[in-house]
């Protein structure tokens, strides 16, 4: 049930923007934002190099030491050497750059004059002395290793293909590529790969990693699946692939900003709700792909453009008299929206996404979500059970996340399929708002079954709301068993917003079991 009255308030937003790091899309966003009248500071850890962003205040050799506050009012301590400054920003743009590490050890190789990294080969190919040498006489043989030290990606493939083609075009020199999966999933790469083959670049795809002897002469042996025999090559140069490394600095930054990374430590996290540049925190954006610069500008202007945002005052409210500052809400908030003021927890209406995880976890029941207060949800439960019991089929109450299951359930009805008569949905902002108490109440009121329907793991808009819901369901199942009741009267399930038929099948199956 959506609360009847919502008081809106205006919150003033600081219009200064901090860009952290000098990744190209972030630098581009910095320049555009400065051009549009924002005060932009670009802080990066590098030396005083030229960064192409006019109107932007550049702070080199600088890192983010501390961060407090929320979107519109981030208070940041920037450290340059042993000098610290406190600044306030409305939004933060992370523009990560990653390092490269040669994977020679994966091939049991030592780097020397003949065994070089991809970066070194690219430099050599720009050196006239080297290219002239490759043009002479019979030329040289250059072998590239790709995809046996790591899975690889299109960016790495592009470098190999371009360098191989360059070698192939130098006199009688020839290029050989030893590849696992050729990652051509990027613009123009298949065409480049084909062009290389037509010009004589040979690509071997052995099933096993090549065996390389780094002796007097270099020696690469593979068992070729096409000719079904050993193939030996004696190249003049071996070029070793490189792996992108995240580095401690990027991980530290993510930890300081309290934003999630993906499994490999890359930003942003791999959650579809964040596509393409959002993080789990309002007002912190990530620019890592070329088109991200534009998308970051759109989001920053959305948030800060007017200098004021209008938000629901009671999105989430802490009862001062109940809060004992136990830090539970601070720890479980996936959006970093909760902070401390005058001895009580405060929830920023700008940063809060209204998921309600904090309200359900608060041991003092001190937090209410404006649109989904405990009182209104309890009324929903009572009403749902009472009306469901009038139906001839078992009465089932389903707590449905409005981002997924509730959408799917409404789609079932709209598309003309039937849900059982005794089935009732209760809309919740996130499965993380489903309290143990709510589930118990549904049973006490007389529901035959209770369903908690959440987003799939990794798809929760509040990152962990579904995890909390899963734990609470398990807890209630234990209690049901302890009371001598059938724990299967309660289930936890996951469903996507676009899967009406699957939702309908899941409901039917549950009801058949009851």
């Amino acid at each position: 049930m959506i609360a009847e009255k919502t008081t809106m308030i205006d919150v003033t937003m600081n219009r200064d923007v901090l860009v952290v790091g000098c990744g190209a899309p972030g630098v581009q966003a910095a320049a555009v934002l400065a051009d549009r009248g924002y005060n932009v500071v670009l802080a990066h850890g590098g030396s005083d190099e030229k960064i192409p962003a006019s109107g932007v205040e550049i702070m080199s050799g600088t890192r983010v030491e501390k961060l407090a506050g929320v979107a519109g009012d981030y208070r940041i301590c920037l450290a340059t050497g042993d000098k610290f400054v406190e600044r306030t920003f409305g939004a933060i743009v992370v523009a990560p750059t990653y390092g490269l590490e040669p994977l020679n050890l994966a091939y049991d190789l030592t780097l020397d004059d003949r065994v070089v990294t991809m970066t070194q080969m690219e430099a050599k190919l720009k050196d006239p002395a080297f290219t002239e040498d490759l043009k002479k006489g019979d030329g040289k043989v250059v072998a590239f290793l790709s995809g046996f030290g790591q899975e690889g990606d299109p960016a790495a493939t592009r470098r190999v293909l371009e360098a191989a083609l360059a070698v192939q075009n130098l006199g009688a020199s020839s290029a050989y590529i030893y590849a696992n999966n050729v990652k051509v999933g990027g613009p123009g790469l298949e065409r480049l790969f084909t062009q290389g083959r037509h010009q004589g670049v040979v690509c071997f795809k052995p099933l096993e990693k090549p065996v390389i002897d780094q002796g007097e002469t270099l020696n690469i042996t593979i068992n070729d699946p096409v000719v079904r025999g050993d193939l030996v090559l004696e190249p003049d140069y071996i070029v070793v692939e490189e792996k992108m490394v995240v580095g401690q600095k990027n991980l530290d930054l993510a930890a300081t900003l309290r934003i999630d990374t993906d499994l490999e430590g890359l930003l942003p996290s791999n959650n579809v709700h964040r596509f393409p540049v959002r993080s789990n925190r309002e007002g912190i954006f990530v620019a890592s792909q070329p088109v991200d610069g534009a998308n970051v500008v759109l989001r920053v202007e959305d948030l800060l453009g007017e200098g004021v945002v209008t938000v629901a005052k009671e999105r989430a409210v802490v009862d001062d008299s109940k809060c004992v500052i136990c830090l539970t809400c601070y720890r479980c908030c996936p959006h970093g929206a909760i902070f401390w003021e005058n001895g009580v927890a405060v929830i920023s209406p700008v940063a809060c996404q209204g998921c309600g995880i904090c309200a359900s976890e608060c041991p003092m029941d001190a937090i209410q979500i404006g649109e989904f207060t405990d009182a209104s949800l309890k009324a929903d439960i009572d009403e749902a059970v009472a009306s469901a019991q009038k139906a001839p089929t078992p009465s089932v109450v389903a707590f449905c996340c409005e981002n997924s299951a509730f959408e799917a359930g409404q789609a079932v009805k709209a598309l003309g399929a039937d849900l059982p008569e005794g089935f009732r949905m209760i809309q919740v902002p996130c499965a993380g708002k489903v309290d143990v108490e709510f589930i118990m109440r549904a049973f006490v009121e007389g529901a035959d079954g209770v369903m908690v329907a959440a987003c799939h793991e990794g798809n929760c808009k509040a990152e962990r709301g579904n995890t909390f819901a899963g734990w609470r369901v398990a807890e209630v199942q234990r209690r049901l068993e302890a009371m001598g009741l059938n724990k299967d009267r309660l289930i936890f399930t996951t469903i996507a917003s676009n899967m009406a038929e699957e939702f309908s099948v899941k409901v039917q199956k549950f009801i058949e079991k009851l």
Partner: protein
Amino acid sequence: MNSQTGKVMVVGGGIAGLTAAWELARKNIGVELVEKSCFLGGHSIGYTCKATEMCQKCGACSVEKMLKDVIAEPLINVHLRTEVKALDRSDRYRITLAKSDGEAADGKILKGFSRHNTPLFVIGENVTEAAPPGAMKIQDMGSECELDVDAVILATGFSPFDASLKSTYGYGKWENVITGLEFEHIERENAGIVRPSDGKSPKRVAFIQCVGSRDERLGHLWCSEVCCAYALRMAGTIRHQDPEAEVSVFYIDVQNVGKEFPVFYAKIKENVRFVRTIPVDIYPVENDCLKLRHMAEDQGTPTFEEFDLVVLSIGIMPGADTKIISEIFDVPMTVDGFLDESVGNGIFVAGTASGPGTIAASMAKAGKAAFDAVKYLGGAK
């Protein structure tokens, strides 16, 4: 800051067009969203969720969400079953719209994939059955008018490869040879994968990659960038639904599937067999099963294997209207036949109209196109 006005036409109502329209509306810019079919959402609104226990980040649910947001947006004016006929650039951009008759609906009631499709049901000509509530007659749909706008975003999308062109696979002849796109629809409509011939869950499934992509004979020198992504995710859902099902993927090179690929790939390899070869042909055998012939890489001899269902991972081809759109808007085509996105001058390209890409990539490109259009409008004043 958001006092900017102006009007932009977005051509194409798939995920790229929807995203571009929504971003423009966020900037307080009026949008004329033109879609030639009877429904918004494009191909991707019909895609299935590919989650196992875990979300596999296919983005299908993002399309549902974007459609919901777009139809709630008063600044976006939608023209369904409408196409662009002409452009006059003498002053602003005067665009002539006409009804599109591209949708074959004779005797049929068409249904949208999402509850956010308005209308959800469209009644074709010569339909005698009773109409569902809220249904609209196809004759009553479509705009015929001239509109003046300040910029245009072309988000005309792609055409799925016509699998019957690879005739040895028997697509269109053998019922249980289906395309990846059909897999999307079947799984979504049946809450699980079933065979077209008998509605039963297949126990042995083959995916054939690069059907229409990376094919020099066809002159298709591009990777479609999405087929490994959907096929591997589908392989995962089959195994999730039925841990005893055997799934094989026939491939040239496995392409990355979004972020966190090494982790995803390692997990999928535990459950799915990968065979590095592109099969030669497919024959029907008894029980509607299929015999697939391929040259096994490690044996070098022809090998025959039987499957209950074969999925052809068809790729992303230039949209059927690309040539016409290119002529009307004077936007050149790339060597591969997609729209060249680098043109500018008030005409911008978003999504797969300019080349293959995932839902996530189309959304990001659409954001960029909207950004460019806003910038153009600002500069024009």
